[in-house]
């Protein structure tokens, strides 16, 4: 008797699991078609570039404070922690290399991406979700204006453009923070700090790869943000759930993509 109950419970669990996975895959397919549609209808976002510029203000410029302050603090912490470890091996002059490479290759794109997802991504989702809930999207469709072209695409391209810019500023700010702590505060030799950094940070290998990463993150985060907003249920719970999903899914996507991109770019160097 107990065996029967266990069997039924297990089967139900598996059924629910299967349904959940199928639902997610279906949603991913829907999101992909949405992505393609948005790309194909992006003409307006560029012909009337003012629409995109306006969104760059809301997504990029308004994220600037949090990006710069966070970058500064991350750089300063890198300086402190890096010095603490390096000076044990007598390599404290490599602090510049440590700070610069950590930021440019990884922390710049990733942390800036996570911050962008929580600040700008959630704002975009909430905005589009609310427009849907208050029938503004339906009204636009009734007026024969494609809301995906007019509302969604400019926000998407604004995110893709803003992301690498923010990541670059994050990295620059972080290096400055590392400089402040390492050279000014602790007393690492200023000349060694910069010269060793310059000798080891390669423009193409490190900086450009970091930029490529941040562009990929920008595409992923903004795509998730606009899709969740557009697909949100037109209620208060729907919009709040969508905003939460944007932040969670974007963060996971950034970290997963970071692994994939790092594996492609930074290892297997000799295999080229």
């Amino acid at each position: 008797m107990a065996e029967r109950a266990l069997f039924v419970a297990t089967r139900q669990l598996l059924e629910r699991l299967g349904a959940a996975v199928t639902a997610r895959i279906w949603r991913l397919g829907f999101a992909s078609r949405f992505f393609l549609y948005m790309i194909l209808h992006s003409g307006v976002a560029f012909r009337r570039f003012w629409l995109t510029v306006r969104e760059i203000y809301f997504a990029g410029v308004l994220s600037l404070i949090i990006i710069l302050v966070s970058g500064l603090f991350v750089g300063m912490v890198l300086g402190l922690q890096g010095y603490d470890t390096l000076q044990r091996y007598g390599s404290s002059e490599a602090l510049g290399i440590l700070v610069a490479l950590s930021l440019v290759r990884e922390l710049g794109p990733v942390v800036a991406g996570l911050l962008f997802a929580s600040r700008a991504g959630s704002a975009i989702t909430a905005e589009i979700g609310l427009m849907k809930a208050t029938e503004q999207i339906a009204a636009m469709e009734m007026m024969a204006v494609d809301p995906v072209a007019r509302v969604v695409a400019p926000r998407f391209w604004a995110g893709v453009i803003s992301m690498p810019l923010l990541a670059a500023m994050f990295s620059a700010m972080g290096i400055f923070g590392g400089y402040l702590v390492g050279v000014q505060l602790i007393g690492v030799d200023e000349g060694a700090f910069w010269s060793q950094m310059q000798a080891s940070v390669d423009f193409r290998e490190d900086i450009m790869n970091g930029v490529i990463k941040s562009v990929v993150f920008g595409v992923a985060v903004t795509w998730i943000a606009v899709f969740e907003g557009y697909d949100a249920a037109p209620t208060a719970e729907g919009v709040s759930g969508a905003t939460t999903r944007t932040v969670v899914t974007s963060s996971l996507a950034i970290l997963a993509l970071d692994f994939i991109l790092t594996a492609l770019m930074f290892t297997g160097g000799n295999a080229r």
Partner: protein
Amino acid sequence: MASPDVVAIENLSFGYEPTRPVLHGVNLRIGRGKVVGIMGQSGCGKTTLLRIIAGALRPSAGAARVLGEVVNQLDSAGIFALRRKMGMLFQFGALFTDMTAYENVAFQMREHTDLPPDLIHDLALLKLEAVGLRGAAHLMPSELSGGMARRVALARAIALDPQLILYDEPFTGLDPISLGAIARLIRRLNDSLGATSVVVSHDVQECFDIVDYVYMVSAGRVVAEGTPQELRRSGEPFVHQFVHGEPDGPIPFHYPAPGYAADLDVGAAHG
């Protein structure tokens, strides 16, 4: 003799899910220049009907002819072209919250026409003047009262002088003064534009004052139709209950429940 119908719904059926149909074999006709009301309880399918006329939903059976086109057979380009000739007022206005009242009204002109900015300026102010809100042109939707927002949305709906205007519950949540204003505007704009209007509502008082003909919908079917006077005099139970606002009748007061005594006894046993 008979003017060609602007809207003709023939034997239309629709359901959001195949197992739960919302509309069953609906037939109705709306003549040119008329203001027609579609009335019924909440959830009877009248807003769905409006969405089908606007081409936002596709019926599972039957046809919807609007302005000479069979809406359910049009592709998206065709629907977009058709919608340029239609205007729709949404339930709470649905104004674009990031634009001023003026920009809301000018939206369609900017998107669909190549008119120079000065001309658009004059035309938009003309529409706002028609609804009495030219002085509020610079205000954002959050600064407008409910009635004012509804009127701006009305000005936006008629921005391109549409031939068919659809109203989704235009009287919901308005104070008596705004109610009167909107009702009068619906009639006056319809007549001055030479357009046709469809008003979906459950506000009997205001609706009957302005419409030429009414279709009553209940549970997805047209149960009665006629002029307001005919419906007021009607002895048909549902119509009578609806028009006179009686709490009990064909639509029961009590939601279906098991016997009262049995329920109380069960309560006592558990208590």
